């Protein structure tokens, strides 16, 4: 009981502290913190429109956060969500266009499979290079982002370009009939359902199966894992593949639910925002859900902050950054707070 309570309480305390810091920052810009917090609430959860806005922005974050969280459980710091998303979106668009004429279900399934596979292989490459060649995975996954974006631009400006998209070079459209629609009467596309389902599924796999447990051992102590007979390299590459597949799926959803084409908009920072969410959630797929929604909410409120209080767009990043720093800093508190120490051992400190 205390084991599950500790992260929740420490995170809550950290969030509260970050709210104080943010209030200080807002005051320094000459605004009233209470009024600004009210606006943030209004813009993120204050109306059905705001809630939809928040959820639509949280949807890609759920998936790109998994790209950092799952490999992190295996001990790797992967920041390649952006590249995996781009590759996944690109290949899904290629798939969707080449399969045109088939039923929408067939096309969408094929797009999701190809997008997830290509994204997965992309990050698995970084994992492979790390274990079998000693290449630092943070650097390799970061650089793979730039390679992915370059490949996207090369293809979308060249071979794949739809001549009607002169001023914003894009691939051909996958066809309106093949697009992933919205849920009921809302403006929230089905992508969020995929995100939530994958988070739940991967939470179950990571924390309730032997496979997930093996991955945690690899992440905690690779040598012990090896001694226990776990194939460390395999676990690392598989975790990276799963993470990359999630980010690739995020790219598929951007194409299938929003743009209908592959173009430069695939590269919009969702991958990088996902890193933030993963670290805030301490790489727990279940915790990714509330944090993705929180991040989505803050971003959704960003527009209102600009228009009501004259704050620059960068304030949203400052707020996110402060939260990030405080929550990371609160890691130091784990295991140190007397309330959570095991009281049955009578150690006098």
């Amino acid at each position, binding site marked *: 009981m205390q084991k599950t309570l500790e992260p929740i309480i420490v995170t809550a305390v950290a969030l509260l502290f970050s709210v104080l810091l943010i209030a200080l920052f807002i005051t320094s810009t000459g605004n009233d913190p209470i009024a600004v917090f009210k606006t943030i609430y209004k813009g993120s959860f204050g109306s059905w429109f705001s809630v939809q806005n928040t959820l639509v*922005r949280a949807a890609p974050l759920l998936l790109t956060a998994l790209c950092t969280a799952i490999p992190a459980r295996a001990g790797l710091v992967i920041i390649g969500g952006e590249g995996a998303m781009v590759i996944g979106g690109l290949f899904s668009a290629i798939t969707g266009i080449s399969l045109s004429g088939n039923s929408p279900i067939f096309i969408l399934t094929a797009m999701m499979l190809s997008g997830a596979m290509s994204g997965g292989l992309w990050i698995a490459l970084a994992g492979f290079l790390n274990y079998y060649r000693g290449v630092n995975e943070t650097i390799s996954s970061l650089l793979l982002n730039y390679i992915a974006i370059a490949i996207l631009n090369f293809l979308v400006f060249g071979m794949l370009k739809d001549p009607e998209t*002169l*001023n914003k070079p894009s691939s051909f459209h996958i066809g309106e009939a093949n697009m992933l629609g919205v849920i009921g009467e809302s403006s929230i596309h089905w992508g969020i359902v995929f995100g939530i389902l994958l988070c739940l599924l991967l939470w179950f796999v990571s924390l309730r199966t032997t496979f997930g447990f093996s991955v945690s051992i690899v992440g905690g102590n690779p040598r012990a894992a090896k001694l226990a007979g776990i194939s460390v390299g395999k676990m690392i590459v598989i975790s990276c593949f799963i993470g990359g597949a999630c980010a690739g799926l995020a790219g598929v959803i951007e194409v299938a639910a929003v743009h209908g084409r592959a173009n430069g908009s695939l590269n*919009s*920072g969702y991958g990088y925002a996902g890193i933030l969410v993963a670290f805030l959630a301490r790489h727990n797929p279940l915790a990714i859900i509330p944090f993705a929604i929180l991040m989505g909410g803050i*971003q959704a409120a960003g527009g209102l902050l*600009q228009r009501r209080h004259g704050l620059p767009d960068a304030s949203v990043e400052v707020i996110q950054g402060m939260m990030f720093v405080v929550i990371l800093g609160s890691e130091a508190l784990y295991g140190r707070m007397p309330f959570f120490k095991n009281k049955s051992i009578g150690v006098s400190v």
Partner: protein
Amino acid sequence: MIDTKQKAGVNVSRRTLIKGAGAGAVVAASSLSPVAFSEEKTVNMGFIYVGPKDDYGYNQAHYEGKSGVAELSWVKAFDEEQVAETIEVQKSMESMIQLDGAQILFPTSFGYFDPHILKIAPKYPDVMFLHCGGLYDDSKHPENVGSYFGYIDEAVYLSGIVAGHMSKTGKLGFVAAIPIPQVLRNINAFTLGAQSVNPAITTNVVFTGGWANPVKEAEAATSMIDQGIDVLTCHVDSPKVVVETAEKRGVYSCGYHTNNLALAPKGFLTGAEWNWSSVYAMYAEKIIKGEKIPNLVRGGLKEGIVKSSSYGPSVTAAAKADAEVAKAQLVAGGFSIFKGPIKDNKGNEVIPAGKAYQQTDITLESMDWMVAGVIG
């Protein structure tokens, strides 16, 4: 208010309604017949920029336009910066309509059009969505969508003339974002302007691959200067990097989007600027008077949508004289920048002798070649 469709090709009223950034007074009301409207009637205008509003470039030009029109007492203008070309802009537009009562929206980045504006516009038929740079097609697009843009290549042509005079090495440099028609048109206009002074002038072009890539822009500028190029210009979202690099290395620069003199007090020659506040004021007027909003607005120097920056301290009298003559010709109308015979830089003839394209010619908006003398 918006009833019948209007055909393409309507130009902005000749009268420049508001001059430049920082000008306070409103000329609009005085130049048209006095309209008595009640104090409560306000026009709510929303502006969305893809980048920061202080980038000395594309976004700042729109921000200055918005600030200009916001000075009208019966206009309420609000804006959002740094809105990505994703579902975010759809939400920004809807938020402005639902929470701020926007009657007219100006999503200013090209990439906002398809699918974003096209998806949101049908949901709000009473709101007008005016897209900067797009091509409105009345057979395809909803009635409450329109587009506006300016023939800034006219002002770039004038920059080219001045550059042609001032360059001692005969080598010009152009840092460009991506090879789309709008950019190629500017590269060609710049080179043709310079070649009208010195036919042997060459322009080196480097494409950075994106609209905002400060590192690549700096690298391109530096390497061009190292090759002996002594006048730089650019077509990227923010000219700040290129112009400041030129100033640091002591070469001349021509600005773009806004007046860049402040960034290069010594080396600034002239530049091509937008004058969006005149366009925005025109739209605001139409709304308050209940007139139909035109679906397609285009114009250049003559209509006051674009203008040439003031000359920098080092520009010679001869350069100024030539530029002013060309400006007068462009304003009078009839002068054609793209007049044959013109060969491209691969040796093909792209405009035959005797053919002259007027600025409004729609073929120019699909330009895919670079004129001879452009290297890159």
